[in-house]
């Protein structure tokens, strides 16, 4: 430590970085699974890597865990390069997709396993196992065999086993993907509670955008092996950095057109002869270039054909094609002839007006200019 004293101010912030991924690439044969990914994750944060299957998110996680060695770049954990360190030499707790609990051991033996492997004091192991089983609300279940536990209980054992040795980092490889929806949402909140309680730095991988928004402090959206955006959930949702992110998170309608005017953050696009005002959300936008305007389904308001949509800058006419009742909301699919027959999806969350339109009804839709993000195509 003494040697770096002179550089103390410059080094100081690095102490708070738990994981640093620098230009990491992974090539399998001729498949570029991860293309020079870089990010820093401060200690104690909950990061979710979100992306469709084949986006490279699991490969990135496996490299951090040490199961695969990057073909390029370096990963630092607590400032130390780890490419040459095998998985059992890293202090990383991992919850696997299929949980990977040891079927020949009881719940308590599973949780005790990492402590025994790390040669902890045998007397303290029991006490620690007890404490972590309590943490995941499985007190008293220690003597059960794994196949005697329900799916949710097995999840909890897997979490306890990954945390009991107080790892530097917790990795979650889509462990919730196989659960039914209700249990999944319950476990998402559980993950969040435990993570906040212990303050352990966590990286979660999922293709479930809702899970990413619910549990994370930060989101990384990946596609085709590249990081598309790294942002807080609310920012990734409100200000997606490109059309892929806008499409992947939330339900988004795209209006294709051409840029006619750029003035500061305001962009005007021409689509099917109509001029629409929007927010320039992409630095590569240029006049005359093809572009896409993205509007969230919940930002669009619907009114009867002769109704008024006061205060909305863009108003178009449409024809209801389908109306889907989803319980807490109604989804209208509306064809807009003025925009080249594009099909737009609109949410109606107002319980008073549920099912106010049916297929075939002529309606009017409108949205604010600030709610249409314009991206280069």
């Amino acid at each position: 430590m003494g040697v770096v004293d002179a550089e103390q101010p410059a080094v100081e912030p690095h102490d708070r970085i738990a994981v640093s991924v620098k230009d990491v690439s992974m090539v399998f044969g001729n498949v570029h699974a991860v293309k020079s990914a870089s990010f820093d994750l401060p200690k104690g944060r909950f990061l979710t890597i979100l992306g469709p299957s084949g986006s490279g998110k699991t490969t990135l996680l496996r490299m951090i865990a040490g199961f695969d060695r990057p073909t390029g770049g370096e990963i630092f954990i607590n400032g130390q390069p780890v490419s040459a360190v095998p998985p059992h030499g890293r202090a990383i707790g991992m919850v696997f997709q299929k949980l990977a609990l040891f079927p020949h051991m009881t719940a308590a033996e599973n949780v005790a396993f990492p402590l025994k492997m790390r040669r902890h004091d045998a007397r303290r192991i029991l006490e620690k196992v007890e404490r972590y089983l309590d943490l995941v609300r499985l007190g008293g279940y220690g003597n059960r065999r794994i196949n005697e536990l329900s799916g949710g209980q097995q999840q909890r054992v897997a979490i306890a086993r990954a945390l009991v040795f107080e790892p530097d980092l917790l990795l979650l490889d889509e462990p919730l993907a196989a659960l039914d929806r209700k249990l999944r949402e319950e476990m998402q909140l559980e993950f969040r509670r435990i993570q906040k309680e212990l303050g352990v730095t966590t990286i979660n991988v999922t293709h479930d955008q809702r899970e990413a928004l619910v549990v994370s402090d930060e989101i990384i959206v990946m596609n085709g092996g590249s990081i598309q955006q790294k942002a807080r959930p609310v920012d990734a949702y409100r200000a997606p950095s490109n059309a892929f992110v806008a499409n992947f998170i939330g339900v988004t309608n795209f209006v294709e057109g051409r840029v006619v005017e750029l003035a500061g953050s305001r962009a005007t696009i021409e689509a099917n002869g109509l001029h629409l005002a929007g927010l320039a959300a992409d630095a590569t936008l240029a006049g005359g270039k093809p572009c896409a305007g993205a509007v969230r389904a919940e930002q669009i308001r619907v009114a009867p054909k002769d109704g008024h949509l006061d205060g909305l800058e863009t108003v178009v006419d449409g024809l209801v094609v389908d109306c889907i009742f989803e319980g807490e909301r109604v989804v209208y699919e509306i064809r807009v002839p003025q925009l080249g027959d594009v099909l737009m999806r609109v949410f109606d969350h107002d319980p008073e007006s549920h099912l106010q339109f049916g297929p075939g009804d002529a309606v009017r839709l409108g949205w604010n200019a600030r709610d249409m993000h314009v991206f280069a195509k």
Partner: protein
Amino acid sequence: MRTPRAAYPVTWRVMDMLERLAAAVWPSSFQRGLPYLMLLPAVVLVGLLVLGLVQIGDTSLRVLDTNTFLMSEDYTLANYQRVLTENFFATVAGRSLMGSLIVTAITLLFAFPYAYLMVRTPSSALRKFLLVALFLPFFIGQVVRAYGWLIILGNQGMVNEALGLVGVPPMRLLYNYPAVLFGLVQYMLPFAVLMLAPALTAIPNELEAAAASLGAGWVRTFRHVVLPLSRPGLVGAGLVVVTLSLTDFAIPAILGGGTQDFIANAIYDQFFRTSDQGLGATLSLMLVAVGSILVGVVFMLFGAGTLAMGETRK
């Protein structure tokens, strides 16, 4: 009429006809009996063996009259007394039992890494090579293979010639106990690998990754995860190898050259050399008994060897 015909292809028509036919011949009320009916051939085959066993039991209770070469009319336990008291039989039985246990231990030791590599290798070419190498010896019968070893290990065999080149005098590599055990291990290895492979396949790769992430190096991953979980496969493979080696005939006969008889060789001698069918039958029954007890003990210890997951902790 054209459209329905197109929507009802010939193959469906044929299948429907067959199903109607089957329904006429075999009404659905008989369906419950079908599984039992399919069991019948196997039961008949095993039943025949049991009948043979009764016959052998009968023979074992008669002694050979050396003057007339006829079996005695009366039942007697004289054969059993001979087998249990004469030193020769104790030697043969001890040699067979000890041999089969040693062969089993060595075979499992060799078969495990082979099966593990075959199951876990990411290279499909290597997997295919290992599989072919495993099956190739099956195409060569046991006797032919034993003769092959005679050629290789004989006094003028390849091994001794090679040793001669470096100045080592010829060694007697055949007609001794190690030669028989060597031949048996070589013969049993494919069986053991084939029994182990499915058991190892059933252990998810993820468990080993999990053990690694939890701090276990490969030695401890093997000891605490892979080995306990492959126990059903090890028990199954061990049983097959023990019973096959205990009852083997050709390899002790050929590689032992008559000096290293196993129980099966002794039985053969009684039936076909001295024609003492009574003594042969007695030896056969003792062999069946020893084998059954061995299997029974293993089953009791390991729970039928199939699902060892549900019990005894490690």
